[in-house]
């Protein structure tokens, strides 16, 4: 009843609806905790958590670290840039070395899809995937759904469009799994070159006209164009991308309803979203960041309680 069905959080794909409900209910309590004047609880004082980041991150890493500290866990941080990975050490060796220093939980970001799954099969620790290549970013999807639930009351039955670079986005994939699991209707919208073939098999529909997509939706989740993952050119120019798939205030005002705007960050202001939209009342971007800490506390709490 009050236990996750999994021992690791590798992706939303491995969760069921009850898990998501449990995570959200637990996050509600942590949200109350982090809004107290003393934002800390002693629950994980016996637990040591390693944050292993083989890829850059600001928000996610900070959010995980804050979540860990507010649960009173001991935290060690590791980034690949300054480590023996550069000297040729393998992933399993790196992690096992860290684990022999008595670490209970590993939060990992890695550029290769499936890195977390691989690790969970070879090392003895609970693994939390903080993003693996273009595969999944489960805590982001959880905090996105949690923010929608907070804003609109429920996720079920809502129309949600994910706009932008779907092809390279782990946020998109995890969001699709999470939203479908909770009974939302999901559309993806972007240039055809940035929408994976056969994405309909995940139960989502494709729309290449942004205005039509926005007219249909209750919530638009705007994604960043991931230039760093693009080895070829997927669209003629950023200017053209912005004209077709960028959201601005004028476009939103011309719709007959007020939709909710989300963005997982980092924002490229003026590309996928203009500043007046990002900073408007319609945008819940900063709520997403706040909720991220509560969601990560819930995930860490629920996974840590399964260790031993």
């Amino acid at each position, binding site marked *: 009843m009050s*236990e996750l069905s999994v021992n690791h959080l590798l992706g939303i794909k491995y969760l069921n609806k009850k898990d998501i409900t449990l995570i959200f209910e637990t996050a509600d309590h942590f949200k109350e905790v982090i809004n*107290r*004047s003393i934002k800390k609880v002693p629950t994980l004082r016996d637990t040591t958590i390693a944050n292993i980041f083989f890829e850059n991150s600001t928000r996610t890493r900070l959010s995980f670290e804050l979540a860990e500290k507010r649960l009173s866990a001991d935290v060690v941080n590791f980034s690949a840039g300054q480590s023996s990975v550069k000297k040729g050490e393998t992933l399993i060796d790196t992690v096992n070395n860290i684990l022999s220093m008595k670490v209970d939980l590993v939060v990992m970001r890695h550029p290769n899809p499936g890195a977390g799954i691989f690790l969970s099969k070879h090392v003895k620790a609970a693994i939390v995937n903080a993003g693996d290549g273009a595969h999944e970013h489960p805590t982001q999807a959880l905090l996105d759904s949690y923010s929608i639930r907070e804003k609109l009351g429920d996720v079920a039955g809502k129309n949600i469009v994910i706009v932008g670079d779907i092809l390279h986005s782990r946020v998109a994939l995890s969001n699709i799994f999470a939203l479908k699991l909770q009974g939302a209707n999901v559309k993806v919208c972007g240039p055809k070159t940035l929408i994976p073939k056969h994405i309909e098999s995940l139960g989502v529909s494709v729309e290449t006209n942004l205005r039509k997509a926005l007219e249909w939706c209750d919530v638009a989740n705007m994604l960043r164009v991931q230039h760093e993952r693009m080895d070829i050119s997927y669209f003629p120019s950023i200017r053209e991308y912005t004209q077709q798939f960028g959201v601005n205030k004028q476009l939103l005002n011309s719709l007959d309803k007020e939709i909710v705007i989300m963005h997982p960050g980092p924002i490229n202001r003026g590309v996928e979203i203009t500043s007046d939209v990002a900073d408007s009342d319609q945008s819940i971007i900063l709520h997403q960041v706040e909720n991220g800490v509560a969601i990560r506390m819930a995930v860490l709490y629920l996974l840590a309680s399964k260790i031993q």
Partner: protein
Amino acid sequence: MSQKVLLTSKEINIILHRLACQLLENHLDFTNTALIGIQPRGVFLAERLAKILKQEYKIKDIALGFLDITFFRDDFGRGEILKANSTKMNFLVEDKKVVFIDDVLYTGRSIRAALTAIQSFGRPQSIELLTLIDRRFSRHLPIQPNYRGRQVDAINDEKVKVMWEENDGEDMVYLVSK
């Protein structure tokens, strides 16, 4: 499994009134007092006492809060996974006289956790403990109630079950033995 009635609804009602009067004796008009029900089961008792104090003794404002202790317990990862309850504290306890309210005092560990948890809401002037059932001889920690409804000698296999009308359909206290 057999169960024995420890307190009937009539007895509970009498005890609640006595406890309310004992609180009155020490706290008079409750201006600087906060009643705090320990989640999940202490909440019903706290609400009942607040209701009696308001309706029958005409106390106007009572600071009533509910405190969840799940994240402050000392048995995390040792047994079953604990599901949290909500904390509702819309006041600070800084310099207040706090009364913790719980239905059964058994090992004292919940109260130990509550003593830590309350620190997040300020530094109280004093903390007292009120409990409906005090299970004697079963304490793991040096914690005793200031106000007790009924003292019970129960062995460790036995369980004291407190039922509240608003939640369980009747006011009753049972001693359940396996």
